[in-house]
């Protein structure tokens, strides 16, 4: 126990990152220059790099009296979160300047939210988990309302805050129910409790509350209602951030909490997750049809994608967890790429966000159109793009676990969702242009290009990612 107490290095990435956040804040306040936002963004990117390197090299152990664990699973997810957060910061460079919200707090808020997510991922106690969730959420509430002169952005922030508070309440209530009936907040002790005795009704109702609270974070239906409104209202880099990093972190929490403390309650929670997954897949694919705003389209798309990821969670097997991790790795690049394309949608200085504005992009900006095609194909799961590999591993796990219904519904809904992804491409390639977009900023081209490269070449280099995901999954089950 003493060893665990003193083992503070395992949280070094978080500690250093939080310290960097405070330092960058100081830098931002002290340097009264016009470009302090750019400088702070660069510093934040550098701290992300440091945090990533530390995460990879920090000793893997349990520490802080069991509050905090660094294992391969946590490292894998943290790297994904850091990549997603970095892409969001890069995306904000041009967008924020152009929209007059280039303030140095922006990257710092992303950084703080990222610290929260990293804590969530490593948390092995309800208390540290809740702390992480709240830290990441509070920063995102502010980020959503960051364009405070824009009514839609303020509305998005407020909506997200009120509903988020409700979800936090559900989460906390669930935790207290579990504590009341099982007598512990520690994951390992809870696991021991549920191994030896059958769970009492109160405790499992608590699990349902926790699932509902977390389902809000990953915007799984029917806890997704905030998603389209908030995605539409929030500044695009924030939306890009919300669509990737917090989703990855929250799904990781889902996986950890369901497999570690509640692993023996599999028969009880499995049906819940299956239900959430099916409703999300169906809702995400059906409601997206008929959207004319590309950000709302992406909102429904992300709901659907969380449904697919939940398929892997629902299996409750090591293969399922591996599938989820591969899926998330393939998803963040395509998603960040699409948001880069959305930022590039600017005509005569004004941002546009109708899908119809993409008409004729294939002629006016063939490179961007080409990349957008990669992303749409990847999101739709067309081989050989990254999204296909992700779906393959998730559905493979479902089939191996004998969950044919889930796999079949997943395939059917991805066929439906292909319709609207292709519909976007139809506008891009087959319709007459209504005027070209303004020139792209280098930061936007960078994210789109990187996303495109990864999305396209993922199938060649899939093996290392899959192996890492497998090792991560084994850390949870082994």
């Amino acid at each position, binding site marked *: 126990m003493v060893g665990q107490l003193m083992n503070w290095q395992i949280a070094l990435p978080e500690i250093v990152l939080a310290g960097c956040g405070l330092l960058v804040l100081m830098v931002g306040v002290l340097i009264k220059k016009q470009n302090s936002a750019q400088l702070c963004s660069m510093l934040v990117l550098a701290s992300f790099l440091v945090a990533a390197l530390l995460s990879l090299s920090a000793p893997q152990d349990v520490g802080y009296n069991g509050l905090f664990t660094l294992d391969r699973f946590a490292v894998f997810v943290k790297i994904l979160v850091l990549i997603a957060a970095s892409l969001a910061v890069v995306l904000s460079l041009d967008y924020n300047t152009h929209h007059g919200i280039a303030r140095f707090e922006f990257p710092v808020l992303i950084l703080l939210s990222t610290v929260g997510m990293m804590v969530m991922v490593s948390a092995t106690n309800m208390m540290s988990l809740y702390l992480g969730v709240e830290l990441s959420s509070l920063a995102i509430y502010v980020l959503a309302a960051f364009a405070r002169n824009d009514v839609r952005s303020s509305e998005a922030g*407020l*909506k997200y805050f*009120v*509903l988020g508070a*409700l*979800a936090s309440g*559900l989460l906390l209530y669930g935790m207290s129910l579990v504590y009341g009936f099982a007598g512990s907040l520690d994951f390992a002790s809870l696991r021991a409790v549920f191994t030896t005795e059958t769970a009492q*009704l109160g405790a*499992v*109702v608590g699990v*349902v*509350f926790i*699932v*509902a609270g977390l389902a*809000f974070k990953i915007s799984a*239906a*029917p*806890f997704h*209602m*905030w998603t*389209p*409104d908030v995605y539409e209202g929030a500044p695009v880099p924030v939306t890009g951030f919300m669509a990737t990093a917090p989703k990855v972190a929250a799904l990781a929490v889902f996986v950890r909490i369901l497999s570690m403390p509640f692993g023996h309650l599999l028969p*009880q929670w499995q*049906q*819940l997750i299956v*239900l*959430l997954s099916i409703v999300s897949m169906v*809702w995400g694919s*059906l*409601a*997206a*049809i*008929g*959207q004319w705003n590309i950000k709302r389209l992406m909102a429904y798309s992300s709901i659907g994608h969380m449904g697919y990821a939940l398929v892997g969670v629902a299996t409750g097997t090591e293969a399922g967890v591996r599938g989820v991790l591969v899926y998330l790795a393939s998803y963040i690049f395509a998603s960040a790429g699409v948001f880069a394309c959305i930022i590039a949608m600017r005509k005569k200085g004004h941002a546009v966000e109708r899908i119809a504005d993409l008409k004729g992009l294939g002629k006016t900006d063939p490179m961007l159109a080409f990349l957008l095609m990669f992303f749409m194909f990847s999101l739709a799961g067309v081989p050989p793009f990254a999204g296909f590999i992700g779906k*393959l591993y998730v559905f*493979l796990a479902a089939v191996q676990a004998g969950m044919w219904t889930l796999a079949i519904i997943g395939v059917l809904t991805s066929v*439906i969702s292909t*319709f609207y992804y292709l519909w976007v491409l139809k506008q891009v390639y087959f319709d007459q242009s209504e005027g070209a977009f303004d020139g792209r900023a280098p930061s936007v081209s960078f994210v789109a290009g990187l996303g495109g490269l990864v999305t396209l070449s993922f199938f*060649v*280099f*899939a*093996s*290392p990612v*899959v*192996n890492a995901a497998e090792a991560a999954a084994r850390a949870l089950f082994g």
Partner: protein
Amino acid sequence: MIYAVAVFAPLLGSVIAGFLGRVIGDRASQIVTVSLMVLAAICGDVSFASVAWGNAHTGVVPVFDWISVGDLHIAWALRFDTLSVVMVAMVTTISTLIHLYSVGYMSHDSSIPRFFSYLSFFTFAMLMLVTANNLAQLFFGWEGVGVASYLLIGFWYQKPSACAAAIKAFVVNRVGDLFFAVGIALMFFLFKSIEFDNVFGNIQAHMNATYHIFGQDFRSYEVIGTLLFLGAMGKSAQIFLHTWLPDAMEGPTPVSALIHAATMVTAGVFLMSRMSPLMEFAPHALQLVTFIGATTALFAATIGCVQNDIKRIIAYSTCSQLGYMFLAAGVGAYQASMFHLITHAFFKALLFLGAGSVIHAMSDEQDIRKMGGLFKKIPFTGTVMWIGSLALAGIPFFAGYYSKDAILEAAYAAHTGLGTYGFVCGVVAAFLTAFYSWRLLILTFHGTPRADKHTMDHVHESPFVMTFPLGVLATGAVLVGLLFHTMFIGDARDAFWGAAIFNGPTNHIMATLEDRSMIIGLLPTLVGVAGIFLAYVMYVLVPGMPRALATTFRPIYLFLLNKWYFDELYNAIFVKPAFAIGRFLWKTGDATIVDGVPNGLASLTSYGSSRLVKLQTGSLATYAFTMLIGLVALISIFLWVR
């Protein structure tokens, strides 16, 4: 490692010329691709030398892990054994010369970077194929070659005939590929692996495995061997699947040279040798190989005798020579088959590039009836064409003599019915080969000019960048057989090939080659000389004879001129019914049923969508309420299920 450089340098060249060609310009694209090819050729030849004369350790060069699903584990790796190295050295060398030649030949084309990019990609795909360490990688290269050939045959996509030829090549190859893919799948089920080492190491374990098909038991190796050969037939244009090869000359001439000599068609022959550890235990499949190979050798030679297009004659000669190679593989003389592949690569590339030089000189005229008397105007091209033809006809001490002789002796030494059939076909084909080669030479280079004066005045020798590769290839066509026959098929063969080619315990065919009677050894040469003499008689001494023969034996002449009516037959059997079925499926099947059902489902889907979207009101209270309803629903379902 230089071996990897030899394989990946063409890819780099292709990528640079393909993606940056428009930026860096024509000249730079040529320089990049050609110099990378030269680099690849140097590395390829050094690798070959290190195996042939040094004692480099053969093995596997790992690149990276690729696929890992279930039992299927595939890694990218380059196989480094004699068989691969021989192919790599040949492909890179020939392809480099063809690249160089193309610099001159394609100098007036409007899309030079695209051409060189395709050419390099073609080379890379072939290298991937021959260096594959497992069947998936080999199939990747196999398909890559198919795609590249499609792109190159249809390079002049403005010409409808080029597009048609490209599609034909692709579709006919697909037929073979289907069998090949099924063969690979069966091997995976049998061996639980498609790595060559795992497969070849476990050959003994599955010796008696059988498949139950159509109420009969077939040995697995026979089925797999037959499927692999059917795949090889498509790629190597054997009879029944040969129809694409003559049409493939619609592409630019350097492409024809590359397809016919170094890449693509040799893939099937290579596959037979590569799979020799398995083929050796599939005697019935090998009999099929022998039969098809021998028949193709004769069949293509008969057609070659009456064609009038200079490239088409050479195309049928390729078809015929490939038949020889399969014949050798069929009787178990894989070494002889590979040797003929290598010598053939040199003289066939020479003949095609020489023909290109003739066409270039004749202002794009390809009909040999409209040529004649060119030797004085373009003596260099004439000389190299003579050398190429001498090698092709198997005249002693030219390259083709050693390899063709070995094949015919092997067929004779097999002492089986089919072996003798192969021997007879081969000897007759050798006679015809010499005949049509000299028919081509005499009509093109000798006698009185039949072209109009304007064209004849324009006849000129090609620039140095085109004649240089011709010179190198001509040297090869003279020397390759002489230099390498000890190594490939002679006394040093066991040390040279090592474990790369497997001869079954009862297969002593290579050893018996030496003890054949004098007459068998001389026969190919004799019939070759006879063929030349007949051509001389028919086209120089008695010029009226071909016409008289054609009128007297008109049905036979037409039968041959129309290539045994294979195209017409396939049109009637496959193409027209396929179109008819297609039209039926389109009108009734597709328009009413297939479109009708999804359209109904689609309207249902969009109806559902519009209902769902209506729930999205924007009101915060509704959203919170939905969440709580969701929670209540979850808990109720949960308690109910419990």
